[in-house]
């Protein structure tokens, strides 16, 4: 293969992934004067961000003026079971309001309060109504705003261009090997920095809310380039996915349904969440239906209904109902908003849920309850990054959004993902610009590396015969659903890892039939390589963490274990090519942050109220 004959494009920085994080990063890079290329394997505006429904969390204080970044920070740490990277949780809570306001400056049209400000809704784990939203299509609003703003910022958009491998020069990023899907031709993107914004790897599971794109490309590329993956054992199962009909199993039902009053019922009609309130949240959760109803009616002295506990708690509670024989006809539980709100309200606040159920399940949610159950939704873990700059341990490699680890710890609060994208997308852009300013000679990837990347990519096409990649993918999904699911044991995980190793050997000989031009089978064959790496890393990390915390539940190690609060599980590729998993000690938290996170809620509320009185108007909101 003659490298000189391959198309080459040069940029200062290449952003891989065009969801909220990638778009925000590209906008920042352009604003800082960098020649920026944005690579997306789909068309612009189709990334999984469009699926986000409920909203983006930011302590704007528009609906409840008592909100403050410190309380958002405390909620995030408690939701993450204190395993979050403290500094990331702080940055996120402090900067989210500014980033959300900025979207409005770029044309976003959020739902409004009566005073004409951005409205905010209640969500699980958030003390106050905090989620800026647009009905139940907030992700679409975010992506379209960033897209329409972005196309005028001067960065190049490379659509339907799939990144294959990172190119390095002496341990520093030097570019990306990629291919154009529409022609099947290769392209070398030469650059001094790469920002990964590629999302998670939910497609390794069968029951998932994720689109086909969620194949862990960025995680796997970073791993191969020598970066570290952290907290991968924490895979979030969203408590409410559709369960029927089978063809839509896993599709998300927004938490906004519960935020707007929806309740969970078992087959006996009981609100079973009242029996599943963890001690940590008992003082902030209603203990009777009467109190929960008063909260919904707006009583400020009533505590939040238990349906709004964090996602890990609700998902496990639903599983338990089903397991103990109190499930709905198709193996979920019932989510009822029809008896709680007027039909008009439901259609106005939850329009896409209304249409989704009517058109895909023939259920009118203004009249009947929905059947819902847990679905693999989100990776809390991902690429290990510096909190302030989003840089990995590989020079010039940055990661932001879902593919980066740290903000969410052991469990993510709903609404903290969309705000994560814009806060850390912006920071990654800035981080890359700072890095490039300090970079001497531009790194250059040698020809042998480029040739090897493309040779590897064409192997599935050139092989005489081999297994069907689609069917291998289905096998992987069955394996992960059963061995690395919501509840885990050492025996199941060990067996899962063995089966994954056997599957990996078969993936290495997969055959893509047909030509290279727009061939989804070839794409699937390449994606399988990434998925299998990430699946194995998740299983190994889950085996190492011998406790149950947040989204990681071990039947053989029940409950949180204090000694495990000291460690993150980190995966990296060893010099011999084998996957290394180790416990990495966490640094001591900054004293002030630890104090805030561990404060009682009343004390903290008094503290921020005092600050607000002493401070000029609104400055307390943004810290």
């Amino acid at each position, binding site marked *: 293969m003659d490298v000189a004959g391959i198309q080459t494009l040069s940029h200062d920085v290449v952003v891989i992934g065009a969801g909220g994080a990638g778009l925000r990063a590209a906008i920042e890079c352009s604003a800082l004067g960098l020649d920026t290329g944005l690579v997306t394997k789909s068309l612009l505006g*189709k990334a999984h961000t469009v*699926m986000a429904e409920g909203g983006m969390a930011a302590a704007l204080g528009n609906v409840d003026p008592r909100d403050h970044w410190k309380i958002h920070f405390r909620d995030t740490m408690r939701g993450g079971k204190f395993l979050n990277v403290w500094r990331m949780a702080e940055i996120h809570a402090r900067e989210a309001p500014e980033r959300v306001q900025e979207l409005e*400056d770029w044309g976003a049209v959020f739902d409004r309060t009566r005073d004409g400000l951005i409205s905010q809704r209640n969500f699980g784990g958030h003390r106050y109504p905090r989620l800026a939203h647009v009905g139940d299509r907030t992700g679409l609003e975010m992506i379209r705003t960033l897209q329409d*703003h972005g196309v005028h910022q001067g960065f190049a958009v490379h659509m339907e261009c799939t990144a294959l491998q990172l190119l390095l020069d002496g341990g520093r990023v030097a570019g990306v090997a990629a291919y154009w899907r529409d022609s099947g031709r290769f392209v070398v993107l030469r650059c001094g920095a790469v920002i990964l914004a590629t999302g998670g790897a939910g497609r390794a599971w069968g029951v998932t809310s994720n*689109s086909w794109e969620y194949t862990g490309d960025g995680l796997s590329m970073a791993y191969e380039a020598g970066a570290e993956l952290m907290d991968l054992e924490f895979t979030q199962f969203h408590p409410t996915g559709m369960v029927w009909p089978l*063809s839509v199993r896993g599709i998300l039902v927004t938490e906004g349904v519960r935020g707007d009053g929806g309740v969970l019922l078992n087959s006996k009609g009981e609100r079973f969440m009242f029996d599943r309130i963890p001690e940590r949240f008992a003082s902030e959760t209603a203990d009777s239906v009467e109190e929960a109803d008063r909260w919904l009616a707006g009583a400020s002295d009533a505590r939040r209904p238990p349906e709004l506990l964090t996602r890990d708690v609700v998902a496990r509670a639903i599983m338990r109902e089903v397991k103990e024989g109190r499930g709905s006809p198709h193996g979920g539980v019932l989510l009822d908003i029809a008896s709680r709100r007027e039909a008009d309200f439901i259609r106005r606040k939850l329009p896409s849920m209304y249409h989704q159920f009517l058109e895909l399940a023939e259920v009118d949610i203004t009249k009947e309850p929905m059947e819902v159950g847990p679905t693999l939704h989100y990776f809390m873990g991902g690429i290990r990054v510096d909190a302030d700059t989003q840089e990995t341990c590989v020079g010039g490699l940055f990661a932001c959004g879902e593919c980066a680890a740290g903000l969410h710890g052991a469990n993510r609060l709903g609404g903290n993902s969309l705000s994560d994208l814009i806060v850390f997308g912006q920071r990654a852009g800035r981080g890359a610009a700072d890095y490039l300013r300090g970079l001497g000679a531009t790194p250059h990837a040698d020809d042998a590396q480029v040739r090897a990347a493309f040779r590897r990519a064409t192997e599935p096409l050139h092989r005489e015969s081999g297994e069907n*990649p689609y069917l291998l993918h289905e096998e992987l999904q069955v394996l992960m659903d059963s061995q690395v699911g919501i509840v885990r044991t050492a025996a199941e995980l060990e067996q899962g890892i063995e089966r994954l190793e056997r599957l990996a050997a078969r993936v290495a000989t997969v055959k893509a039939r047909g030509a290279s031009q727009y061939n*989804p089978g070839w794409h699937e064959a390449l994606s399988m390589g990434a998925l299998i790496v990430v699946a194995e890393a998740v299983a190994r990390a889950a085996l190492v963490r011998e406790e149950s915390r947040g989204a990681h539940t071990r039947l053989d190690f029940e409950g949180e274990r204090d000694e495990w609060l000291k460690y993150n599980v980190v995966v990296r590729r060893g010099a011999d090519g084998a996957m290394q998993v180790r416990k990495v000690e966490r640094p001591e938290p900054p004293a002030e942050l630890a104090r805030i996170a561990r404060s009682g809620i009343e004390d903290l509320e008094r503290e921020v109220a005092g600050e607000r009185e002493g401070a000029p108007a609104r400055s307390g909101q943004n810290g």
Partner: protein
Amino acid sequence: MAERRSFRIWRGSAEGGDFASYEVELDPGMVVLDALLRIQSREAPDLALRWNCKAGKCGSCSMEINGCPRLACMTRMNVFAPHESITVQPLKAFPVLRDLVTDLSWNFEQNRRIRPFKPKAKGADGRHRMYQEDVDRVQEFRKCIECFLCQDVCHVLRDREGQAAFVGPRFMIRLASLEMHPLDDDDRIPDVKNDLGSAMCNITRCCTDVCPEHIGITDNGIIPLKERIVDRYYDPLRMIAGRLFGRFGGG
């Protein structure tokens, strides 16, 4: 329980192609996209088609199903008569790349021609204010998932000359969403009239009929834009004033 269905799927490239026949076993509740993905994974691994969210939210799986432009993920198999065979082909208004995938880049170029949102100054407290009743209409337009089905049925866009003259319904409602945005401080009405081809639309409402988001493209978006042009350029009083003072000319 399992039911078999026959599909005719257009296979080919810019150089040409033809329909190929497939049989697929269905499960209850399936949509057309499920059937196509099953054909792809079992029989035709290189069958090219676009899809992402599979829940009607991203607008990727636009195609023509039995002659109607539709989202494959939102078209349930039980809307067809028993034993009816299903014909699937790519959108007709755009050049075929491969099988069911068309080159949509023209649409992305049109978007770039529209001048971006330009915010008004913030209030004294440093914040923007706008009210729900003033944004309801804009939010309706912003539901658009860019499936481009409206572009596909727009008879103006069915040929190259039309595409040179008119941005199409998708971008008319984008323009409407900017023009009706309470915080926007720009004026795109001259562009709409002079460059973006609003006069080409003769309001047949085909676009509105196919919109999966049920946006009132014609009545709520295109017609009000046309009215603004009429008010500005063809209002008799303004035309006289324009001749006298040299403003608002060009009617």
